[in-house]
């Protein structure tokens, strides 16, 4: 899932909030709260570092909006909260699907008695049925919707692509014609037939964009659907102040579940004792504040206005020199939850860009020289304050296909980068900047935000490019605008990040697959060699053979100089003692359903 490279978005206004966030928070603090069944409500307060974009699961592409959707909508399958590595479990399905012997047919049985939350789009309580998933999956490919997640099922479900073709001709997507690939056997049974075996299909149906939406709601709200999420999940959207505050409220009519998870990690024992046997959900209200400056959310946590916070660059405020938690936090019984996120950051080159794109040897040399000049260790040390590890493969640690033995081809070596540019005729002009081999000027344009952290990255890039005498300019803009330009292959370079949607290397390698250009392939990198390897891997189940193909793909993208690979960030979260059951999940982003608050501790 697309994620901010930095932990911030570029909003000029946010700077003012360094000063005013305290007062803003206290302004929003409710004076009279909605009470739960027994006394005081359990309210969880968290911060997002970037604004949401909306709440249509099929359409949103950023992690933070999707996190909200995760707790409003439900999928067929989900992940076990404690099992590591991540393990699939049924969500609205009765069990994991029955898969036919040829690996092409998946049959899901949906639990009876699951209802959508009340909405004016429904006249009577609306039960979730198999047809809703058939509708929601078809909707992913509706050309008018242009879902950024279409790539996940494109060409995979029997008969679906014919519908898409027809829609492109008629201008209207036909939702009514049943197709073989999404066959509704009875009210509660859905049979999905694939064109070819796909070993990741269960992961796909567990992914938030593949949540069930009701057709009545989609048609009732039309274009306004982004503001009206109506799902079967434990929470509903209570209040939404765009870019400032989101409030989720527990649904009283949610079917609920009992906290019952096992762990093979002894460290989880206290957590299990805290939570075992409790009836979920327990949090009555989740209040999400959009706080773009890390410093502001940090200060809000210090002032007890947030219940947990990622420590980001504030390592020195948390750890002693020996790595232990500072006394000030120990005294407050604040817990530290550590993990390395299954994610990578990367700066892509646009392969359609006339200046740096293409596969000629000169361009290869240029891109690889740029990669060799960029000092990731300095990024980690100075900008990320050691809260990250260097990524050497597009597949991060903790995800199937990652190989810690892999040594990158384009390592930091500015001297070599200079020699390489010299060898391919990138001569210096009278001002000392390198030109293209034909003598025309060479200027890189790196897209960027306008926050303090963006400036730090720009400084680092400037330093790196000065080392190889390549002129670089920065193109400041908003995250949303940059995304739009990226999808149209119009940005030359931009740093972005991807966090696993499911714990398989395929989810990362697809970022480089040619046909995904315009969707998730930001660099519009279309290498026939890479694509051939990718397609070969796609036909294989998890195996040493497929892992080897992942290595080959990594080498191929390095040879082509597709990305400046970045880092995997460490996720260090400080949690207030009254928040029970918190554990960072590698895939799920909204843990709220699984948490509890100890109100006596909070007093």
């Amino acid at each position: 899932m697309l994620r901010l490279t930095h932990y911030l978005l570029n909003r000029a206004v946010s700077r003012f909030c360094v000063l005013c966030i305290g007062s803003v928070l206290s302004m929003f603090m409710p004076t009279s709260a909605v009470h739960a069944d027994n006394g005081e409500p359990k309210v969880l307060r968290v911060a997002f570092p970037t604004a949401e974009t909306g709440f249509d699961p099929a359409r949103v592409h950023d992690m933070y909006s999707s996190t909200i959707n995760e707790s409003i909508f439900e999928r067929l399958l989900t992940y076990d909260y404690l099992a590591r590595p991540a393990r699939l479990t049924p969500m609205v399905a009765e069990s994991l699907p029955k898969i036919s012997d040829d690996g092409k047919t998946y049959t899901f049985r949906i639990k009876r008695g699951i209802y959508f939350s009340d909405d004016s789009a429904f006249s009577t309580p609306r039960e979730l049925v198999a047809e809703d998933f058939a509708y929601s999956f078809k909707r992913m490919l509706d050309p008018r919707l242009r879902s950024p997640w279409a790539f996940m099922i494109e060409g995979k479900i029997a008969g679906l692509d014919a519908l898409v073709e027809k829609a492109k001709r008629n201008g209207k997507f036909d939702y009514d014609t049943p197709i073989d690939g999404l066959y509704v056997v009875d009210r509660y049974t859905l049979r999905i037939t694939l064109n070819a075996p796909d070993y990741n299909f269960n992961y796909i149906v567990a992914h938030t964009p593949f949540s069930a939406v009701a057709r009545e709601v989609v048609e009732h709200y039309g274009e306004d659907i982004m503001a009206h999420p109506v799902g079967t999940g434990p929470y509903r959207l209570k209040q939404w102040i765009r870019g400032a505050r989101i409030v989720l409220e527990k649904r009283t009519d949610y079917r609920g579940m009992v906290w019952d998870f096992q762990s093979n990690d002894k460290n989880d024992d206290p957590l299990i004792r805290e939570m075992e046997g409790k009836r979920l959900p327990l949090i009555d209200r989740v209040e999400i504040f959009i706080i773009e400056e890390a410093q502001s959310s940090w200060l809000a946590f210090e002032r007890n206005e947030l219940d947990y916070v990622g420590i980001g660059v504030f390592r020195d405020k948390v750890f002693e020199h020996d790595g232990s938690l500072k006394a000030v936090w120990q005294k407050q019984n604040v817990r530290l939850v550590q993990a390395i996120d299954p994610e990578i950051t990367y700066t892509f080159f646009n392969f359609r860009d006339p200046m740096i794109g293409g596969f000629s040897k000169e361009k290869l040399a240029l891109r690889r020289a740029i990669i060799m000049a960029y000092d990731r260790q300095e990024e980690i040390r100075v900008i990320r304050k050691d809260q990250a590890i260097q990524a050497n493969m597009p597949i991060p640690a903790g995800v199937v296909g990652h190989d810690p033995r892999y040594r990158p081809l384009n390592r930091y070596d500015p001297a070599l980068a200079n020699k390489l540019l010299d060898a391919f005729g990138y001569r210096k002009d009278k001002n000392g900047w390198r030109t293209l081999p034909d003598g025309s000027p060479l200027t890189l344009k790196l897209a960027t935000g306008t926050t303090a952290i963006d400036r730090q990255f720009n400084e680092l890039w400037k330093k790196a490019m000065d080392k190889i005498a390549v002129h670089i300019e920065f193109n400041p803009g908003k995250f949303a605008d940059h995304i739009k330009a990226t999808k149209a292959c119009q940005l030359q370079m931009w740093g972005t990040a991807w966090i696993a949607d499911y714990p398989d290397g395929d989810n990362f390698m697809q970022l480089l697959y040619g046909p995904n250009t315009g969707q998730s392939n930001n660099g519009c990198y279309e290498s026939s060699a890479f694509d051939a390897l990718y397609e070969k891997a796609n036909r294989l189940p998890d195996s040493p053979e497929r892992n080897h193909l992942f290595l080959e793909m990594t080498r191929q993208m390095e040879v082509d100089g597709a990305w400046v690979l970045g880092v995997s960030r460490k996720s260090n979260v400080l949690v207030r003692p009254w928040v029970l059951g918190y554990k960072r999940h590698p895939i799920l982003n909204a843990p709220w359903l699984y948490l509890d608050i100890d109100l006596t501790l909070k007093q």
Partner: protein
Amino acid sequence: MSAAVSHYSKGFWQLTWRRLAMDRVGVVSLIIVLMFFMIILFSAFGLIASDWNHEVAINDAPPDLWGILTDKHTSVIQPSSNNTLSEISEPLPELSVVDPLAEDIAKLRTPIDFSSHIIDPLADTLRDIGYSQYVSTDPTTIEKRTSLPFGGDRWGRDVLKKTIKGTQTSLFVGLTAALLATFLGTLFGAFAGYYGSYIDDTLNWIYSVFNAIPYLLLVLAIAAVLQKRGIATVVLILGLTGWTGVFRLIRAEYMKHRAREYVMAARAFGVSSLRIMFIHILPNVSHIVLVEISILTVAFIKSEVILSFLGFGVAVDDVSWGSMLNDAQSELILGHWWELVAAGGAMALLVTAFSLFTDAIRDALDPKAQGAGA
């Protein structure tokens, strides 16, 4: 009895200077302002702080005024290649990806850790220039200071030199933008006030439009439209948005002067309107222009700081007080206060001195004020 004095009356500027010299605060602030001007002249000609971009110290070097005497250094190893991965005990299986640069790079270095089937088109070249997967050029050791008189920034650059360079940027931006804004304001004000009627109406309408939009929003909107960052952009933004105050004052003055006898006389002589406006009337309102320039300079220095702080200001390879404050904000919570203090202190000093100087000059320029020789 001084007969010589009584022979002629002193000129306007002479009297002004007399009055200014009597004002002790005015003189002190003038000296401070002049000092700043000296600094930016030296820095503009590269005599000082031209190497502000050099990373002379360790990251976030603390300030230490005695450090300049002791001159403590530490050795920092600068790897020329990242060998952060531990050596691989188990070799990787062969890869078939062909690296087109492999041969080129291999020529520059020794062979890679596994023979890949992937063709690297650059392989030959790389071999030529001595590439090796294993061997990299020896790490170099460089000396870095452990502290600096005013501290070092995140990358180890001297905060003092950054402040000086930032002074140059900020003062330059403030002055040129003030000149631009005053020029526009005076020009429009003169036309509106002198001609009146529909010219006045039109210019007033433009003025009202500019004034109706909240200042900071207008500035940010123009900054967003211009996209390209840099000092010239900031000057343009501030100049184009800041002329309205001057316009109103000058317009009022011209309306007043239009009816004066000397203007009537000039008109009766058949002097052209432009000549009346800029040769006859302008000197009589020049003291207002002068005061406005100094007021705007201060205002624009502050605006530049805000713009750069918000990320719309100077480019990455430039430094201004605003960008320093921006840098400092994320470091402050980690206890690195020196960049904030240096930039904030310099700004406070200049802005205060400049404001006091402006007050003094306004008093001095007022012909009705009582002063020496009046």
